[in-house]
């Protein structure tokens, strides 16, 4: 074997390892495009106040087509809506809401779903029976039916949307985690931990969970995309956040009646939302491709 070093050298830091694993994405062109899209929207959201040409809720000149200039010389790159608000500014400001609410809701869903999945998959027995049954009941609702009923019952607000998304997504996450755990629990390092008398919590969270992170991260990206769609759909159905602050789904809902004459009012928010979802889906695909390769 190699020569012996006297003292322990410093291990590479956690931050560096994380950076390196994100760097892995560079090997997937699809993933890079995805990251670029997400970064694009993140920058817009972060610097919305600077980047948006007009205040998002200000009435300026109604019914302007893209590229039009009104009498006072204001140019509207993406036109204005029926209330005379600049669509570009509203899209830029609307990205904030999505990019805060969607990751937060996804996170909440994982915080609930992961322990459920760990318990069902690792402890098995009654835990598994009960948790799986609960998941099955919730998942037997067509998702949107569930959302519509929940929101219609408890009302539309950011917190309620968060609750609804957590409630509806956690069972799916539980199932995925459970499946991963059922595989991982038979690994010998888990047996090794058991033979040295580790507690169930330690084994679930320290021995098993870190090894499930790959598929969980891929799933999280896909789910994030889906949550963005959900928020959009709720806005579109009129169950989203109340006006006047810009909300992509809401913008489509408000202007779709005019779609026959002013299609741009709804088309641009549609493109915005689709592109963001695409970004997350591409990243998920890139990550999966890389994880399969090694």
């Amino acid at each position, binding site marked *: 074997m190699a020569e*012996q070093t006297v003292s*322990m050298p410093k291990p*590479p830091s956690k931050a560096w390892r994380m950076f390196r694993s994100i760097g892995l994405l560079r090997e997937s062109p699809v993933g890079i495009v995805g990251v670029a899209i997400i970064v694009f929207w993140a920058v817009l959201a972060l610097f919305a106040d600077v980047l948006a040409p007009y205040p998002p809720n200000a009435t300026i000149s109604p019914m302007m087509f893209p590229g039009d200039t009104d009498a006072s010389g204001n140019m509207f790159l993406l036109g204005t809506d029926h209330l005379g608000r600049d669509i570009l500014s509203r899209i830029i400001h609307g990205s904030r809401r999505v990019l805060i609410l969607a990751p937060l809701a996804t996170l909440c869903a994982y915080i609930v779903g992961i322990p459920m999945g760990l318990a069902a998959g690792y402890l098995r027995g009654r835990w598994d029976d009960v948790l799986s049954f609960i998941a099955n009941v919730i998942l037997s609702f067509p998702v949107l039916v569930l959302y519509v009923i929940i929101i219609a019952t408890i009302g539309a607000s950011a917190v309620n949307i968060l609750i609804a998304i957590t409630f509806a997504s956690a069972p799916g996450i539980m199932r995925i985690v459970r499946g991963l755990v059922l595989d991982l629990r038979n690994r010998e390092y888990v047996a090794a931990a*058991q033979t*040295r008398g580790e507690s169930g919590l330690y084994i679930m969270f320290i021995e098993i969970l870190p*090894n499930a992170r790959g598929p969980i991260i891929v799933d999280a990206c896909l789910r994030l995309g889906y949550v963005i769609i959900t928020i959009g759909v709720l806005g579109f159905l009129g169950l989203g956040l109340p006006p006047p602050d810009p909300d992509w789904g809401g913008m489509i809902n408000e202007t779709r009646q005019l779609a026959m004459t002013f299609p741009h009012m709804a088309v641009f928010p549609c493109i915005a939302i689709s592109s963001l979802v695409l970004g997350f889906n591409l990243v998920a695909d890139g990550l999966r491709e890389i994880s399969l390769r090694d």
Partner: protein
Amino acid sequence: MTTNGSGGETPILECKDLCLSYFTRAGEIPAVVDFNMTLHRGGSIGLVGESGCGKSTVAMAIMRYLGSNGAIVGGQILYKGRDMAEMSEEELRQLRGSEIAMVYQEPMASLNPSLTLGRQLVEVPICHERISEKEAYDRAVQILADVNLPDPERVMASYPHQISGGQQQRVVIAMALLSNPTLLLLDEPTTALDVTVEAGIVELIGQIAEKYDTSMVYISHNLGLILETCDRVNVMYSGEAVETGTVKEVFDRMRHPYTKGLFGCIPLPGADKNERPLVPIRGQLPLPHERPRGCNFGPRCDFFQAGRCDADTIAMHNVAGEQGHKVRCLRWNEIDWASYRPEGVSTEQSEFGDRVLHVDGMRKYYELTDNSIAAMIKGNRVKYVKANERINMDAREAQTVAIVGESGCGKSTFAKVLMGLETATDGTVNFNGDELAEKSVHDRSPKQLGSLQMIFQNPFDTLNPSHSVGGQIARVIRKFGVEKDKSKVEQRVLELLDLVKLPRDFAHRRPRQLSGGQKQRIGIARAFAGRPSMVVADEPVSALDVSVAAAVTGLLMEIQRTYRTTLLFISHDLSLVRYLADRVVVMYLGHIVEQGTTDEVFAPPYHPYTEALLSAVPIADTSIEKKRIILEGNLPSVMNPPKGCVFHTRCPRKIGRVCETEAPPVVEPTPGHQVACHIPLDELKQMEPVIVMTDANKQAAEKAGAKKEAEGSPAAE
């Protein structure tokens, strides 16, 4: 096909200067370099080597099935004189399955799970010979009978998962034989099978060669199997053939240092852990893109000469006086093998101490709810899987006790009960004065946990890939309360790394940066972190290559000797058990059928099952003759074990009704040697030894001072 008009008979298969590469993102990776092989009608060639040596790649290249990233980059493969590289896809297709057929490593995976075996069989002749469905069916049934499958018609209608692994492999062999191929490629055909099943398949392969006049290429990592199946052998190392010749030449008069090293790593009957320990090959197999200049084996070779061995690529040299025996070594005729003694250190046999473990009448039954309607009506829904039945055994301080048996014999369940992952259904397990039978891990004190630890089988998941190596060892140290202080824990981690002979900076490595052998060493360090008085090792080297396994085994025994640890060594490998165990326990279907000292168990009188097991183990020594005992039938299910003696369904020495009705008595030919069998003791004592060596070597063995019961021979001089 075409025959070469001029000269003698065209070989069936000829590889000429064959070079194979895989193309990856990292660039071209040469898998096989400068490979030559000639196979004549009726001949059989073995390709042998450790993992990564390129032996399977050669087989796939012969099939022209290298995948999208593999290619022949040089040389030729000639099948009956025709260059296979120039054949069209259609020509290849007509060759595959009809002229060249293949048998694979994992029979279950090689059969389509959703088609009946019959359909998978008949399509071969239908496709190649355009015969009718009826004809094809009849022929398939005929061949299934030829490969000794009982009730071929039932097999035809079955799906792959409905028959046992050994039967599946027989079906795959039948499938290969359906169109009467000229060339048969066998890629590790018995690796996934139990040793008694393997013996049956090996016998079958021998019969085929005679009956069908088929030429064979047999790929294996097991030298013993090559001896039993082939007449020529190609030893491969790191993408090259390093030595080739007849089996006798290569096994008895090997010239290449690697071949020599390989034989030094396998526990042949003459090896003994104290007097003639195994000699591992030092260093590691180079990665394909990091092969050294000159001789690939150079950095690991005791005869390496700088400036000569690493100057240029090494060609194959003919061994003078032995036509066809070639060796890829510049110094083949300079080395004096007779005076070469590798540095295997002989040691004293440890004195055994007090009794550490006493197991008495231990049973482990698993409850299983039967959900079939029949069971519901009958009302007996709960069934028992009798995983362990009446286990009685002892182990002493510094002793190595081996538990041998094939899959399903209950050896792993026994380990689980000892470790507290399961609790015993009945009986006592006394360990250092503590009663552990009903104490699960959570009820054991840190001291109890630390003093009884385990080494696991699979190097690829024995360590948690998410945590650093040092962190995982440190956790064990803290958990068992060996050290509390942070710097002391760190110190202890480093000491443990020293103990298993790994560099200290491995503490910061991740498991995936380690090779299989290194991971197993960490597994050993982890097991010894709590200063255990007993360690259970569950097949710790079965997944490792022989040269690595020898090193890990040696390390384990060295540590055991230093700490006077009791080692419970669970294994299916009888050769290894004979080599390292002091006491052997043979298990079959949850029962102990025989136990005694190693010498007692490996010499008559045997339990009939032990006898069959011994006969089944392939031994890579040309001077050894074995009695052939092939077990018939399948391993019965633990759910529904046979009444009476559990072995009676397959026992070649069954004496009558009593075997089916009554549990066998335990007889003691000598005190401490227990055999559970109905055969009267006098009759048992008249058994012939299974393994016999020819006279010439017997003298040599006696001279070498091998113990008389071991009947060993020095590792081929």
